[in-house]
């Protein structure tokens, strides 16, 4: 796995100005990947480009590959700026990095779900480019599994961390589904619009209420909603399930007395009232009315911060999972690297035995005991000769480790060796007989 490396920069090492200079639009990825592979002579490569990171995961043919890749990145931005920001991780470190990125532990907002999708897209792009080989396939297949495990076993992705998402989550604690729910947007701020958009995506019907009917109509049209005049505030509040207020008004837009009457007329149907305005649009006493759940911007931020705190706490548990997975991946890699050696030894031994058996029995019609002895002797000599030669050489060079290890390979204990040395002098191996 030593040949596997990650080269890139992220929000940890580079400001947005540098990241955006290096970022690649999805359509440009295949061409960039092909160029990079050719230029840096990479066996396998995957380019990940998101708003928070640009990274190359690759397997180099030779040592020059990493330098070429670095140069390729530097050329895309100003070398002096990018030099400090670029990081290179190799082998085990690179594997850990891939697992952490896929599990969203390296993300700006820890636990955000988009990164996994972005890596999968990058993987597909690289695969269709023919740039995925056995190493990257194994690393990323495992990275996706690790990401799933982290999500399953920790609460790293639980709870939203943006104000608009928190508002939607809270709505989900009151209403089972947004389908057919009436969402009233009072005024229009960016955060309120984002929350309304998310709720509308869930199937809610949007009603936009603004002092400027034209602005209300424009916003409503964008989300398939309906515009309303400000004079309809009370009648709309009677019908709404969720109301998001973010006007620039300096006095309360939703007053306690009026709301008390509205609640009665609503027959205590639950109303989720989100006040994102500063100064506040909704009289805080409204929150005490039955069926009304009032959250202002500070409440929402507090929930978001709590969620973020929880995610950070969960990140510690996730890091432990990553360590376990890196260790088991390395173990599996080592085992898989031994496979061809095992296969070759197995084939070699079988070939020699088969050859010797054919040599002894091939032309005979009946088998005699002495023939079996002869076949065993021939096969043993042929198999053991190169081992004895290497052992002698090792002993001459003072390589005692080798000398003691070989008997272990055959399951021969020290006692057996001692017994052998007391019985007779070791005999040289029989000369290799020509077939």
């Amino acid at each position, binding site marked *: 796995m030593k040949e596997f490396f990650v080269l890139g920069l992220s929000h940890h090492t580079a400001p947005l100005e540098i990241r955006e200079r290096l970022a690649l639009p999805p359509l440009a990825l295949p061409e960039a990947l092909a160029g990079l592979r050719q230029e840096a002579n990479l066996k396998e490569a995957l380019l990940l480009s998101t708003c928070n990171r640009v990274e190359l995961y690759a397997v180099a043919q030779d040592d020059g590959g990493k330098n070429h890749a670095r140069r390729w990145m530097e050329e895309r931005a100003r070398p002096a700026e990018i030099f400090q920001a670029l990081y290179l991780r190799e082998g085990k470190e690179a594997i850990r990095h891939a697992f952490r990125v896929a599990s969203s532990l390296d993300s700006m907002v820890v636990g955000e779900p988009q990164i996994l999708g972005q890596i999968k897209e990058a993987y597909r792009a690289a695969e269709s480019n023919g740039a995925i080989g056995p190493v990257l396939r194994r690393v990323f297949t495992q990275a996706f599994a690790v990401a799933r495990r982290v999500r399953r076993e920790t609460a790293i992705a639980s709870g939203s961390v943006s104000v608009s998402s928190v508002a939607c989550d*809270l709505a989900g*604690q009151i209403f089972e589904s947004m389908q057919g729910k009436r969402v009233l947007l009072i005024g229009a701020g960016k955060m309120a619009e984002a929350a309304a958009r998310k709720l509308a995506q869930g199937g809610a019907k949007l009603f936009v209420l603004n002092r400027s009917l034209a602005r209300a109509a424009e916003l409503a049209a964008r989300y398939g909603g309906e515009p309303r005049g400000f004079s309809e505030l009370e009648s709309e509040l009677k019908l709404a399930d969720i109301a998001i207020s973010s006007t620039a008004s300096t006095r309360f837009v939703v007053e306690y007395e009026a709301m008390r009457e509205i609640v009665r007329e609503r027959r205590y*149907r639950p109303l989720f009232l989100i006040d994102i305005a500063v100064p506040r649009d909704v009289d805080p006493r409204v929150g005490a009315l039955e069926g009304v759940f009032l959250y202002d911007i500070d409440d929402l931020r507090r929930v978001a911060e709590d969620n973020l705190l929880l995610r950070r706490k969960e990140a510690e548990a996730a890091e432990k999972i990553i360590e376990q997975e890196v260790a088991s991946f390395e173990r599996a890699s080592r085992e898989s690297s031994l496979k061809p050696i095992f296969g070759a030894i197995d084939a070699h031994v079988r070939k020699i035995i088969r050859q010797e058996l054919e040599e002894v029995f091939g032309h005979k019609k009946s088998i005699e005991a002495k023939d079996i002895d002869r076949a065993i002797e021939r096969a043993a000599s042929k198999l053991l000769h190169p081992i004895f030669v290497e052992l002698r050489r090792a002993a001459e060079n003072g390589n005692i480790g080798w000398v003691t290890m070989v008997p272990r390979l055959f399951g021969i204990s020290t006692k057996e060796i001692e017994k052998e040395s007391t019985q007779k002098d070791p005999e040289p191996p029989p000369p290799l007989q020509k077939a």
Partner: protein
Amino acid sequence: MPWHPFLAWLFGGVGVLYALSGAGYFGLLLRGDERLGRAAHWALLWALALHFLFLISVALFAHGTILWSIDELLRWGSWGVAFSYVLTLQFKRRGDPKRLRALGAFVLPLVLLFFLVAGPPRGVEVPERFRSLLRLIHIASNALGLAAFAVAFATSIAYLFAERALRRKQARTSLSRLPPLDTLDAMALRMVWLGFPLLTIGAVTGAFWAMRLDPNSPPIGWNQAMALIEWVLFGVLLLLRVVAGWRGRRAAWGTLLGFLVGCAVLVGYAIRSGPR
């Protein structure tokens, strides 16, 4: 008469399985660990099967007579509560099943309580006068009604806790793992709708049976008065839900009150001397 060892074993097994299931559901609610929820669900399914075997065995030892005492009512009622909960989980098409499972943390303690209060069968001789169809209908409808009201009660408690947490802006408590408030409210309403006709049948058949058993007995005693209050409370609750649009917190309190009065009726019968 001592319990039959087989019944004692079954009783213990069912009790342990319900306790394990309840603990698992609590674990799901507190830690959000779905594996605990799944384990709890399996424990509940096994408990239900074993509980049913227990009920049938008790009936066999009583020579085929079922539902002849208040203990029997609780035994069948506790099975009914668990069964209705499983049915709700099974047939709820919308909503997050994980959140519905978390509700088990409120339902299972009730199941276990009723089951343990009923206890193992104290004896299997059933007096002849208890072998009556009217009494069977009376206790069966009351057992089913109890099951429906118990689920409504558990759901209403869950509603009140979840609503309080939301109002106090404690959005990240374990209670956020419960189903949404409107689901809890709708579930409680459905269960009260289901329980009320059964309670009505139970009350009417009970009155007829009591009159037939002893025509000279006073028309209404403590238990009958409490049962009537329970019936009126649930009736008014349904009326207010339909006519005045009661829902949410006040409907949950109404359900709680109705169910507690229903429990008082059970306690009244339980402490009465003689066959229960």
